[in-house]
C-alpha cells in the first residue's frame, strides 16, 4: 500500500497551511501541533494514505472537535480524547476502522485525525469533507451527498460519552449534537457516522491534507528565505489575489452561537483608493469591493498577514493589520445546485447568486 510517512516537519507545515484553509475560522492548530510534537518525541508516528487506495468496504472514521475555540484555550487538547471518540463508535457499531480522516481540514481540526491515528495505529486518509472550515454540520460534502448523518459519538476529557443514534437530517444532527456539546462545557471530541471506502472515494474531498502541507511548506520556506509568502502560496495553489490593504474597521456580534460581523479594508499598492468589505460567520463568507460582491462561499476567502503570509482569523483580526486577501478555488462538490444550497451565499443569509472568482 502506498502509505507515506508524515514527518514532524510536514506537521509543522500542516498547522500553517490548515490555518490558511480555515478561511478565518476553525480555531488555531497550535494545540494540536503541540500534541503532535509531544507524540513524535515519544516515538509515535503517523502515515498518510490516499483515499483512492481504500477498498469499497473499508470503514473510515471522520473526526473533529466541536465547540468554542475559547474553551480550548483553557482546557487545551488532550491527544487521547479524540481517539476515545473513535473507539466509542467502534464499540457501538461493531465496525473496525481502516483509517481516520478529518471532517474539516481548515484550522485546528486538521490535526485531530493525526492525534487519533497516532494512538490507534491507523493511517490518516488524505481527504476531508469541507476542504476548508465551515461552521455547521450540514456544510459538508457528506451532507451534500445525502450520506447518513448518524450515529455520531461525542466524548469529553472527563469520560462523558454520548451517542446520537438517530436523526433524520444533518440539520437535526447539528441541533442535537450542539446541545450535548454545550452541556459538556462547549467543547466535545466527535467521531461522525462511519463512512465506507466507497463513500469516501465518491464524496470525500481528496488530497486536502497534502494540499495543506504544501501550502504551509511554501509559506514557511518563503519566510525562511525572506521571500513573498503570498506569492509562494500562489505558486502551489491556483489562487487569485483579491485585495491588498489595511484593516480600518472590524465589527463583531455573537448571534445564535456564531461570531458574525464585518471587516473593512482600505486598499494599498494597486488597490489604493478602493475599499474591501468582508462579512464573516466564524469564517469569511462574502467580500465586496467598493460595494460590489467579488467573492463568496464556497470560494475560499483567505485573509493573510501581508508580511508573514500566515492566516488572520475572524476572532483576531484587528484595526491596523496589513493584509492580503486571496481567493482559492472551492471543492467541485460544492458547485452543484445542491452543493450551493448547503454552502452558497444564501445558506449564510446573503441574497446573492453564486459567481466564482475562478469563473471564466
Amino acid at each position, binding site marked *: 500500500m502506498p502509505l507515506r510517512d508524515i514527518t514532524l516537519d510536514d506537521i509543522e507545515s500542516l498547522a500553517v497551511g490548515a490555518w490558511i484553509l480555515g478561511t478565518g475560522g476553525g480555531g488555531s492548530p497550535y*494545540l494540536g501541533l*503541540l*500534541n503532535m510534537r*509531544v*507524540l513524535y518525541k515519544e516515538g509515535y508516528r503517523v502515515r498518510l494514505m490516499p483515499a483512492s487506495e481504500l477498498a469499497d468496504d473499508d470503514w473510515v472514521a471522520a473526526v473533529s472537535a466541536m*465547540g*468554542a*475555540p*475559547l*474553551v480550548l*484555550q*483553557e*482546557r*487545551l*487538547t*488532550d*491527544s*487521547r480524547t479524540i481517539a476515545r471518540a473513535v473507539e466509542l463508535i467502534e464499540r457501538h457499531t461493531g465496525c473496525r476502522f481502516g483509517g481516520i480522516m478529518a471532517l474539516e481540514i481548515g484550522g485546528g481540526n486538521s490535526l485531530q485525525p493525526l492525534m487519533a491515528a497516532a494512538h490507534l495505529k491507523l493511517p490518516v486518509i488524505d481527504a476531508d469533507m469541507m476542504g476548508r472550515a465551515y461552521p455547521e454540520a450540514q456544510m459538508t460534502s457528506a451532507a451534500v451527498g445525502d450520506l447518513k448523518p448518524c450515529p455520531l459519538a461525542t466524548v469529553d*476529557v*472527563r*469520560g462523558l460519552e454520548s451517542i446520537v443514534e438517530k436523526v433524520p437530517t444533518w440539520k437535526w444532527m447539528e441541533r442535537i449534537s450542539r446541545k450535548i456539546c*454545550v452541556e459538556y*462545557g*462547549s467543547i466535545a471530541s466527535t467521531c461522525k457516522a462511519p463512512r465506507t471506502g466507497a463513500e469516501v472515494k465518491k464524496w470525500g474531498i481528496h488530497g486536502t491534507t497534502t494540499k495543506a502541507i504544501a501550502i504551509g511548506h511554501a509559506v514557511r520556506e518563503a519566510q525562511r528565505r525572506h521571500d513573498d509568502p503570498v506569492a509562494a502560496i500562489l505558486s502551489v495553489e491556483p489562487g487569485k489575489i483579491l485585495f491588498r490593504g*489595511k484593516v*480600518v474597521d472590524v465589527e*463583531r*456580534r*455573537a448571534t445564535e*452561537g*456564531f*461570531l458574525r460581523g464585518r471587516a473593512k479594508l*482600505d486598499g494599498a499598492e494597486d488597490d489604493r483608493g478602493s475599499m474591501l468589505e468582508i462579512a464573516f460567520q*466564524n469564517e469569511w463568507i462574502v467580500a465586496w469591493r467598493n460595494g460590489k460582491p467579488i467573492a463568496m462561499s464556497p470560494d475560499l476567502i483567505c485573509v493573510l498577514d501581508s508580511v508573514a503570509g500566515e492566516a488572520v482569523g475572524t*476572532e*483576531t483580526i*484587528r*484595526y*491596523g493589520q*496589513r493584509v492580503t486577501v486571496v481567493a482559492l478555488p472551492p471543492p467541485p462538490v460544492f458547485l452543484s445546485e445542491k452543493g450551493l444550497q448547503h454552502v452558497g451565499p444564501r445558506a449564510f443569509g446573503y441574497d446573492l447568486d453564486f459567481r466564482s472568482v475562478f469563473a471564466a
Partner: protein
Amino acid sequence: MRRIGIDVGGTNTDAVLIDEGKVIRAVKAPTSQDVTTGILDSLRGLAATGVLKGRQIDAVMIGTTHFVNAVIQRRNLTKVAALRLGMPAAASLPPFCDWPEDLAAVVRGGIWMVEGGHEYDGRPFMPLDEAAVIKAAAEMKAAGLKSVGISAIFSPLDPSHERRAAELVAEVLPGANITCSCDLGRIGLLERENAGLLNAALADLARDTIAAFEQAMGESGIAAPLFITQNDGTVAEARQARRLPVYSFASGATNSMRGAAYLSGLQDAMVVDVGGTTTDVGQLKHGFPREANSVVEVGGVRTLFRMPDLWTFGLGGGSHVELDPVKVGPISVGYRLLTEGLAFGGRQLTATDIAIAAGMLVLGDKSQVEHLDAATCQKVLLEAARMADEAIDRMKTEAGDVLLIAVGGGAFLIPERLPGVSRVIHVEHGDCANAVGAAIAQVSGECDQIFKDLPRVEALSAAQAIANDRAVAAGAARATLKTIESEDMPLAYLPGNSVRVRVRVVGDVAAN
C-alpha cells in the same frame, strides 16, 4: 509632586528629577554589575547639581530590563514546582510543554497535575482534589523546591481553586514563593501558566534586585516610597513588583513612549525611539502605548503579557554605515560608539559620524570625519529616513498624516519632514525619555473576564468596577482613576449572550 525617575538600561542608568510637571534635571551614569552602584552614581549625579535640596521627594520610580534579561540569558532563575489544577484535561500537554528545552531545564523543578478548575460558565470543571494538592506539596518539600507556580482552568473567571491550593501548599511549605496564574490575568491557560512559571522563576532575583534598589535608596538618603515601572507604562509598589516581577519585564520601551508623551504634551501620536542599536516605533493612545493583542514570546516562551505593540528595526546612533551602495545597520557598535566610531578615534563609520560630519551633532573630533562630503552624508541620512518612514507607515492605524515624536539618543537621525507625517517633534530631554516615563508612571488595574446574559452596558460596568478595585489595591488613588481601554468581544459557539470584556483603568499614585 517631586519625583525621581530612574531607567536602569543595559549601558546607562539615567535619572531625572521632575517637579510640578517640569523636568528639572537629567543625568546619566554607567550601569553597574551590582545595579546598586549605578543607581547610586546617577542619584549622586543629580544631588551634585543641587536640585535635590529643599522639599522632600514624593516618590522614586525605577524602570529596569533586569528581569527580562535574566530570562533571555537564562541566569539567576529559581527552580519552580508547577502545580496545575485541571485534570483530567490536557494531561498530554503538561506545564513547560512548549518551553525551549534549555530554559525548561533551568526552571523546571517538577510537575504536578491534579483535579480541579472551572468551566466558562462558572460550574466546577472538577472538584478540587485537596488531598492530591497536599501530597504534591509534600513532594515539593522533599525535592527542596521553594518557588511554586499554580494554574487552574478558567481561573481568571473563578480563582477559588488556585487560592485554596495556594493556602494548602503554604501550610506544607511555609515561606514558599507562590504565584497564582489568576493574578496574571488573561484567558489562555498555557500562556497564563507560562507567565506564572516565569514569575515564580524570577522570585529570588526580584527579591535581590528590589533589595538592591532599596539599598541604593537608603544609602542615597532619599526617604520616599519606591515604585517599579511595568510593561504597560504604569508602576507597582516595590512590594507588589517583588511579588509579580513579570509585570516589569519590558518597561524600557514603554517608559520611552510615555516620556515622549509627557515631554511633548501630546496624548495621541506616533513615537520613534532611536537608541544605539535599534529603533522602536509605537503608537500613543490617550498617552499610553497601544498594546500588542497577540501572543508575546519572551525568551522563547509564549505569554499574554500586557506589552506595547512595537515595531523594532536595526537603526541607531551606533549603526554601521556602508557607502557603496548606501546601507545603514542593522549591525551596530552599540555601547562601544565612544571608542569605535570614527569621530572618537575608532575605525568604524557609524550613523553618529555622519551626523557629526553633516554638522547636526557637535561631538567627538570633527576633523576625523571631514572627508565625508555633504552629498554623501545626505544619501546616508535619506536612507535612515526611508527606514524610519517604512516602519512608521507599518505601525500607523489610520490613513492620513500623523504627529511623530522623536526621542532617544539617536533621534537626530529622524528628519524634520517625513512622508505621511504632518509634523516631527523633537523634545528637550528626549534622550532621557525613558527615565522621564518612569518618573510620571501611574498605577493601573485590569479586568479581562467573560460575562453571561448581562446587557452589554452592565457587563462593561461590572468589569470597570473590578478593574477599579484592582488599581486601588495596586496603590492608585481612587478619585484619579480613569478608563483608558474598554473593549468587548462576543464569543462564538458559546450559548446565551457570552461576551468577553476587557477594561483597563489608570490613576495617580495615592499619597501615603
